[in-house]
């Protein structure tokens, strides 16, 4: 085992004084027992595990990825700056080669936060992984990045943000949306016209256990990663697939999570959901940390762990095998599908209704992307929220082509403020963010 030892950075921020509300699952003691277990195991004394204090994300870091209405300051709390900052710290330690990999064990989470933010949805205000990814590109130049989101809920926020980005392979493996919030994440949600195939959704049936997750990893996720050849692999490490999670129906174990991390070998892991704070999180997190550090995790089991009790039924196994082979074929044929989607047009529009369950806000969105062979394509969004805010945003993607940039600048220039409360301009390559 010791041959595989890696230096692992741990950014631990349990936010013991922050909650959405006193009885909300996202509350003060969510990571309390995880802290106890990590401390008691003495993990921070191991010579290849180093703890770092999270830095603070800046408003600029948020504005590089999000359009917040009316502004970033009003949709976040200090805690969000720390959890996004913790993810950035994890990335910095890896990029600076201070560690081989890093785990941001921070809260509050972020993967339900979309590009446009009017408030909180799915316990998330801002998307901490997306902020981290854009920070990495801003500071270290263009990177091909794969995000493997193992939270039990479909990462609809991350999907929305990376939908048009061919340089980010976003893979979400989650409980089937027909049985769980947010109800999306089906295989046919496959990425925008300029990034077709770079959003991959793998819905798994309720009661999927270690066997099903690891089959999916070995036969679908790892082969896709082999082909994509990312510069960095990020694990959106939600822990609510656990068999004891109170708000989901899956049957994944601490051993399963540890093996998954061992095989996936992410450069950076960022905690997402996971609300079995007493029976699952302490063991899952210890398992993930040991696996990332290349240490023996085989003794990390929940007190009530019995593989026989959580074994998935044979028909589930069969269903997963079919699902995996179907999605893998979609991925292999991603390039040939583009013409059928774009149909030779210049722009494509999608209309979205978004509900912010945590804050009770609803939003109507018209998103238009320029069909482009050179870059991710210029994006404009017209958004009306029940808060009364109507906004318009022009977004130039990273590594943009001159045409998309020029058109974007013209649209921002010519859009009159009159019909909108705010008009935003976001240019990632030049790191420009304007509001009028």
């Amino acid at each position, binding site marked *: 085992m010791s041959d595989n030892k890696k230096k692992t950075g741990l950014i*631990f*921020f*349990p*936010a*013991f*004084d*922050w909650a959405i509300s*006193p*009885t909300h699952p996202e*509350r*003060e*003691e969510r990571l*309390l*027992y995880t*802290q*106890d*277990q990590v*401390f*008691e*195991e*003495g993990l921070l*004394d191991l010579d290849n595990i180093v*703890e*770092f*204090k*999270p830095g*603070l994300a800046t408003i600029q870091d948020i504005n590089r990825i999000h359009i917040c209405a009316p502004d970033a300051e009003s949709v976040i*709390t*200090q*805690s969000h700056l*720390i959890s996004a900052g913790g993810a950035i710290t994890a990335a910095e330690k890896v990029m600076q080669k201070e560690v081989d990999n890093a785990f941001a064990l921070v809260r509050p989470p972020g993967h339900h936060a979309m590009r446009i933010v009017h408030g909180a949805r799915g316990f998330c205000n801002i998307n901490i992984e997306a902020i981290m990814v854009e920070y990495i590109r801003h500071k270290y130049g263009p990177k091909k990045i794969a995000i493997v989101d193992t939270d039990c809920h479909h990462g609809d926020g991350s999907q929305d943000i990376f939908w048009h980005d061919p340089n980010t392979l976003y893979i979400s493996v989650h409980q089937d949306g027909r049985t769980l919030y947010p109800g999306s994440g089906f295989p046919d949600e496959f990425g925008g016209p300029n990034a077709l195939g770079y959003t991959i959704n793998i819905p798994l049936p309720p009661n999927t256990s270690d066997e099903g997750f690891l089959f999916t990893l070995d036969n679908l996720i790892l082969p896709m990663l082999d082909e994509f050849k990312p510069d960095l692999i990020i694990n959106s490490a939600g822990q609510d697939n656990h068999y004891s999670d*109170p708000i989901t129906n899956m049957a994944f174990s601490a051993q399963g999570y540890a093996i998954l991390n061992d095989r996936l070998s992410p450069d950076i892991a960022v905690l997402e959901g996971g609300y079995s704070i*007493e029976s699952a999180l*302490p*063991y899952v997190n*210890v398992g993930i940390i*040991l696996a990332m550090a290349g*240490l*023996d995790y*085989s*003794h*990390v*089991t*929940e*007190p009530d762990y019995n593989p026989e009790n959580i074994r998935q039924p044979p028909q589930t196994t069969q269903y997963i095998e079919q699902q995996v082979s179907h999605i893998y074929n979609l991925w292999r044929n991603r390039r040939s599908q583009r013409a059928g989607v774009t149909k030779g047009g210049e722009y494509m529009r999608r209309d979205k209704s978004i509900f912010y369950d945590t804050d009770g806000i609803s939003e109507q969105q018209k998103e238009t992307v320029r069909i482009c062979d050179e870059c991710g394509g210029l994006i404009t969004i017209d958004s009306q929220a029940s808060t009364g805010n109507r906004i318009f945003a022009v977004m130039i993607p990273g590594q943009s082509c001159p045409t998309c940039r020029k058109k974007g600048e013209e649209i921002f220039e010519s859009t009159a403020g009159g019909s909108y409360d705010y008009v935003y301009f976001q240019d990632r390559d030049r790191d420009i963010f304007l509001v009028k």
Partner: protein
Amino acid sequence: MIVGIDVGGTHTDAVLLDRFEIKKTAKVITNRENLIKSLMEVTEEIFEGEDPGKLEKVVLSTTISTNAIVQSKTDRVGMILAAGPGLSSEMLRINEDTRFISGYVNHRGIRVAGTDRKEVTGIGDIFEKEGIDHVGIVGKFSTRNPRLETEIGDIIDGRFRHMSFGHRMSGNLNFPRRIATTYLNAAIWNTYNIFVKNIMEYVGHTNTTAPIYILKADGGTSGISQSAEYPVGSILSGPAASVMGILSLTNDNRDAVALDIGGTTTDIAIFAGGTPLLEPLGVTIEGHKTLIRGLLTRSIGIGGDSRVRYEDGQLVIGPERDGPAAAFGGPSPTPTDAMIALSLTNIGDRGKALKAVEEIAGIKNCSIEEMAKEMFDLACRKIISAVNEMLSEINNKPVYTVHEIFEGKKINPEVVYVVGGPARPMASYIDKMLGFPSFIPEHAQVANAIGAALARTTTELTLLADTEKGEMTIAEEGIQASIPRGFTRENAIDICEDKLRERALRMGAREDDLDIEIIEDQVFNMVSEMGYSAGKNIRIKAQVKPGLVAGFKKEESDVR
């Protein structure tokens, strides 16, 4: 009258304080093979002509425990571990007599698997057959529920000379450190207890009834007989004595850095508002990370006698010492020789110092003065960078609340105290580099003995209350008691303070030295899966912090 005695590696120093004024000092060579002998000699010297009846107390800082560990003069220990799930047993095994049992406790203090009587008896049989006299019993999360450890102890009770229990060592979480601490405690228990017995016999022959105290690693004292149960508490008392000495000789309430520049090493300590900082979890000795409460000190291999040489075109200092400085007949050039060459001090044989510096100056092809300056500068810079690194570590220590991230207190030193041989020549240089003034206390040569004499009794306790379980635990005291559902944070603080007071008085504290402080205060609402409140998880830690005995501060200038 108070007597402070510091047993050092080379000398044993004693100081006699009369109303906090130094009345007398004494010094003998330390007899490493027989510490009692050195103690008797120095005591007889310091008491000559004094009235033993006026003696209030004697405080000893001794190397007995440290030496036993460093020189591996330890006893064989049979270790019984209740590890449960987590790290592999190979990572936890501390010696070849480590045995694992099936029972364990989880993070809530709930016993998941109970004690198997036959299993434990069997391990006892093996230990006995092997001729093992000392046993350590350690459970994961035993601070949350000590019962499993005590049950194991009950099963094999009476079969061994002594048993050390993990939950008694500290209230802090960290199983591997609890294992190491319990192991070391058991391994030196016999050596330490013989030492205590000898001292008590010796005291019995004198005319004094004054209590004897032992200085601990945290810069506080404990009555000698109370210390016998917890011998590891007395390790590394030397650096603690030095820090407490500096505190007594400076006596102010500012954030400060303390440097003890010796021949081989420089020891660094930090004061926050006049209180020396403690290691967050415990001290490290001989590679063992422990839960032994101790002052935060950092030792770097730079001292007046460090060997200086050229290596790969670079000037290198330390960390080894070849012997004394060249000016005192040593084999290699040292920072002390550089200071002599620069006329910063006029000790030793200047000719020899110049000659030694000239040797390396020749390699670099520069003047003696240039080389001496470079050597001196490098030694100072190495110390400064260690200080800055330590401060940055302290100020960047991870914290776990939004409040602390935004409002957390930072250490901002306003003064650097410097003691040790090269203190005078180096202080004025170092303070400029650090950017705040230096202060060289008087009587620094007996600082350790003074520090021991003036240290107060310290201790800490951790209380955990779980109102859902209806139970409260204070592991260090072996207390486990039922609590009502309405048990509050305020109840917890009251009980913790009371028990801490009792513990400190039992260890020999005086009532007016009980400067009690709550150092951890957390309350979590536990919410059931259905979303209703299931109870409270209350965590309180209280301490008597390291400091000087009451009465001393009032007569501030006496010692100066």
